[in-house]
């Protein structure tokens, strides 16, 4: 049995504000195994990014308040670590790749220095050695002429290059876990493919676990081993990749899959899930998805379904999962 690298138990995050409380994350559990790439999928506003930041304990109080029962990284309990203690962990044992590389990098520092920083902080390397490592890291992610590129400022690089720098930053100390928050969303499609390849090879070749946060199912299909589906702050399903795509259980998941246009489809009109994601301050009663669900019943309107564990690692939170109809 492969070991667990990341275990998150019962993570809750809320943002109190003048009009009420924003319920961003409502008690989710996540597990990532060694070498595994787990995707966290959901529409914008479902709480994915907040989850990512919480795992790294990067959220500040105020404006947020969070509770977590257990946060464990490669056997080490991080639950009660203070911010100071977390400084030793971040960047070294776990790292994050942000979505927008332009704003994620310090505009007045060369990219080389920004990567050097990580080495100098977490290892005993001196200035010159750190720079050598930086150059090696840039090579690894496919940046041409790394020695001169390292002296460039972020605004002097193209979007794809910047993203590679972020990847190099994250992999610098070969952490146990990489969290990638929408790593390709802000890139052109062609660059997306390249960057994804880099990410994939880095992850596989160095046996690093990844938590991939995205709303793009094609990215999931490309990279993930297992998928968590998130809706309005709650996990509504989990499945190994194949099964999620071939045999979705949750109506929401089915809706997501159906709304991706495919050339082979032959359909005439776009399929959409009606209405929009609930406002994080005014969530519906019962199951959060019921206003948009074609299978909603009275039970759905009144009671929030439990998250059930099924065989072969699947989870489902629904009173009427699709399987029921098929009478498996």
């Amino acid at each position, binding site marked *: 049995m492969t070991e667990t690298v990341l275990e998150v138990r019962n993570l809750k995050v809320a943002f109190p504000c003048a009009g009420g409380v924003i319920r961003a994350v409502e008690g989710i559990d996540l597990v990532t195994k060694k070498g595994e790439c787990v995707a966290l999928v959901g529409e914008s506003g479902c709480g994915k990014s907040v989850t990512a*930041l919480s795992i*790294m304990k*990067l959220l500040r109080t105020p404006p947020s308040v969070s509770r977590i029962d257990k946060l464990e990284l490669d056997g080490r309990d991080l639950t009660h670590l203070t911010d*100071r203690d*977390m*400084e*030793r*962990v*971040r*960047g*070294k044992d776990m*790292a*994050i790749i*942000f979505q*927008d590389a332009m*704003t*994620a*990098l*310090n*505009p*007045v*520092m060369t990219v080389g220095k920004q990567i050097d*920083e*990580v080495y100098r*902080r*977490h290892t005993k390397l001196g200035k010159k050695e750190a720079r050598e490592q930086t150059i090696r890291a840039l090579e690894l992610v496919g940046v041409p002429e790394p020695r001169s590129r390292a002296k460039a*400022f972020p*605004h002097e690089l193209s979007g794809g290059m910047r993203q590679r720098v972020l990847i190099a*930053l994250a992999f610098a100390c070969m952490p146990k876990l990489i969290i990638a928050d929408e790593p390709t969303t802000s890139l052109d499609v062609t660059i997306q493919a390249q960057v994804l390849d880099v990410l994939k090879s880095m992850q596989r070749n160095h046996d690093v676990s990844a938590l991939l946060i995205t709303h793009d199912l094609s990215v999931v299909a490309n990279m993930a081993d297992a998928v968590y589906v998130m809706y309005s702050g709650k996990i509504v399903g989990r499945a190994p990749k194949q099964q999620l795509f071939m045999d979705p259980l949750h109506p929401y998941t089915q809706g997501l899959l159906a709304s991706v246009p495919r050339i082979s489809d032959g359909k005439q009109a776009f399929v959409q899930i009606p209405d929009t994601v609930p406002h994080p301050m005014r969530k519906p009663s019962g199951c959060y998805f019921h206003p948009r669900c074609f299978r909603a019943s009275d039970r759905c309107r009144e009671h929030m379904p439990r998250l059930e564990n099924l065989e072969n690692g699947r989870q489902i939170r629904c009173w009427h999962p699709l399987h029921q109809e098929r009478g498996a």
Partner: protein
Amino acid sequence: MKRSYVIKRILYAVFIFFVVLTLNFFIPRIGVRDPAERYYPPQGAMSDIEYEIIKQFTAEQYGFDVSTFQQYVRYLNGLIHGDLGTSLRAGSPRVTELIGERLPWTLVLSVTTLIISLVIGLLFGTLAAWKRGRWQDTLLLSASTISIALPAFFIALMLSFYLGFELELFPAYTNPNMVAQFDWSLEAIRVVMNNAALPIMSMALGGIVGYSQTTRNSVIAVTNEDFVITARAKGLSHTTVLYKHVLRNAMLPLATSIGMSISGLIGGAIIIERVFNWQGMGTLFLEANSTNDYPLMMGIMLFLSAFAILANLITELFYSILDPRVTVGDKR
């Protein structure tokens, strides 16, 4: 720093200076048909014929006998040689001489004020940003609104009254012998500082509040940027994040502010100098005004403009060192 950028900036500054000095040349000619008119003595008891001769003589004396173009050329020529003109005062001192005498005294006030404002402003601004939402921050906000509404010269008057007349802590009017008796001795320096105290206090109050507010806003804005989260995500220590990432970027708008303050270093203290009768450039200018000493007035104007242009240029170049994004196109 890209060389082409530097050259472009310098050329541009020269261009602006040229436009300004041309304006400077033409301004005194506004409002009168005959530019020499302002220099004619009053007619008094002279007959018309006598007066005509006096007028012609005056015109010749002040160089108005040649064409405007030739006057302009003479003016440019003078400038190249560093001559800003000759004052109409008794003894006909050169404008540059007079400026040289009084400039240091103005600088005593402005530079001290600038340093005090900057240092305290930076400290308090960072504090207010760190304690965002707490009382230090709210205090700063109230202080900002109030300080803009209270003009510096009013504060000066109040200080002059309370600390000067009532409590007699500092002289309410500058000692008129201060300049003449200055001999670089410790005692003389003490006298200067004593007299400078109130003017500096009046100006520094606004300055401190201004810089605090700018620093505070800048630090808060930068702290909310994504790259600060990245820095924290890399596990860098608190201090590293603060100094190398936050402050380094927060300095940028501050540098611009400082640049603007520097251009105002000389001309900005006119009113305060008047309140305390401090013998600096400000009072020099006001004296020139009351005696209609046009060469002196325009000479000072040009000097001030040139100084402003230079200050701006240096600030821009310095800023481009701080912010590598600048050399790419026009930052505006």
